[in-house]
């Protein structure tokens, strides 16, 4: 079928540019209830390039809110299945699926090419992480959220306004307290934590999905200045649009100093450290990691441990609180675990391989991001 006749009705809308939509490249993180609706809208509108990220598999209870999934899809990866369905919806568009944790599967060297990232995840940790990436990379972010009645769509125009307020600027302190309940020792997951399940329906999912797609496709146009939140009530139809102010002590904005310069570098190994070794550069500095790492642990009772001579550099997220129980002397909670999100340059020199996708430093020029 010829693409031109497919989009004929769109071309009759005087403020709608099909060409521009076809050029747009977006990332949709999370192909759950909201993700399905966002993807459906983007595909039907003819958005040219859609990348879908999700680690999760389709379960039977997803089917009431997932227009793209069928009963026969149960067990399939959500991103891969959604991508297949979108190609059915419109063969003219380019769709790619990235199964797995987006933190691992995102190509950070190409991250800056997205016109918008649409966040359709179901937890604060992933939102905070995406917000951090988008703020740092200067990529527009649309955040979505739903419950059984309301939908929220936050627009952060970081590409045009790098100083725009971010998701964490208005995040209440109670969210951090809630998140800390799930973790002990600053980053290790608690062993038995039961996630609260929030019931939702396709009503709020489709409300959030259509508004998010609309916002994402409008970001290229000069529009409202600053970050903005739409909060909609699916029962009364009432909605409020509000400006999102910046917070001076925002944990994200305070550590990112414009301009941000992103460079791809090689992860260091000893051989590659030599070049500037003869310089009289001070080695007292440190780099900031985008996630905490375990540098060492040691049992306070029996002394058994690792990382005292050579730092371990394990992602804290890969471990849970059972690490605090000593395997050698069976001492419960006896192990002292050192977790860091900053590393001195001397440690960086010893690290053959870093478990994080990038590190950051600050200079008098601004913020430098080194992507591996």
């Amino acid at each position, binding site marked *: 079928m010829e693409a031109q006749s497919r989009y004929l009705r769109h071309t009759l809308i005087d403020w709608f540019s099909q060409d521009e939509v076809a050029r747009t490249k977006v990332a949709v993180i999370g192909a759950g209830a909201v993700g399905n609706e966002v993807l459906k809208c983007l595909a039907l509108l003819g958005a040219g390039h859609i990348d879908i990220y999700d680690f999760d598999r389709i379960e039977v209870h997803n089917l009431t809110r997932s227009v793209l999934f069928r009963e026969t899809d149960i067990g399939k990866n959500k991103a891969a299945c959604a991508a297949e369905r979108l190609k059915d919806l419109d063969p003219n568009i380019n769709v790619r699926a990235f199964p797995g944790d987006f933190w691992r599967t995102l190509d950070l060297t190409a991250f800056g090419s997205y016109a918008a990232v649409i966040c359709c995840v179901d937890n*604060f940790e992933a939102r905070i992480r995406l917000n951090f990436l988008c703020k740092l990379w200067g990529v527009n972010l649309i955040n979505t*959220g739903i419950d059984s009645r309301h939908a929220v769509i936050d627009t952060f125009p970081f590409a045009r306004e790098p100083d725009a307020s971010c998701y964490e*600027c*208005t995040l209440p302190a109670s*969210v951090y307290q809630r998140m800390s309940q799930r973790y002990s020792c600053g980053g290790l997951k608690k062993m038995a934590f039961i996630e609260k399940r929030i019931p*939702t329906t396709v009503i709020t999912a489709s409300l959030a999905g259509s508004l998010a797609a609309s916002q994402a496709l409008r970001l290229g146009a000069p529009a409202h200045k600053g970050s903005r939140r739409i909060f909609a009530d699916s029962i009364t139809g009432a909605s409020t649009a509000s400006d999102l102010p910046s917070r001076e002590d925002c944990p994200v904005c305070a550590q990112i100093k414009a301009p941000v310069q992103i460079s791809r570098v090689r992860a260091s190994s000893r051989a590659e450290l030599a070049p500037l070794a003869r310089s009289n550069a001070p080695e007292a500095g440190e780099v900031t990691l985008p996630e905490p790492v375990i540098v060492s642990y040691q049992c306070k009772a029996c002394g058994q441990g690792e990382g005292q001579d050579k730092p371990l550099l394990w992602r804290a997220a890969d471990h849970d609180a059972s690490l605090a129980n000593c395997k050698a002397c069976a001492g419960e909670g006896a192990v002292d675990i050192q977790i860091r999100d900053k590393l001195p340059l001397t440690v960086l020199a010893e690290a053959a391989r870093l478990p994080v996708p990038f590190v950051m430093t600050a200079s008098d020029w601004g913020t430098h991001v080194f992507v591996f």
Partner: protein
Amino acid sequence: MTDVKFIIRTADQTRKAEVEMDRTNQGADIVQAAVDNWALPTDTDYSLVNVTTGKALVPSQLLDENYVRPGDILEVQPVLVAG
């Protein structure tokens, strides 16, 4: 010590109250008062929006005249986490 009188309501507009508060209070204090007085679910987080001015309030924001004027309507909105 100056007080400011304003309207506070929930996002679904089922709860509404007139509140008088010292301007040295923070946005988070209003949210806490709403959660306590209306027994809102404590497993949810809330943010605050001045719907009269169309501006959200950061949690640590003091209720000074630039942000909350007498008679303004403030809405307590749940922070939505499902997706």
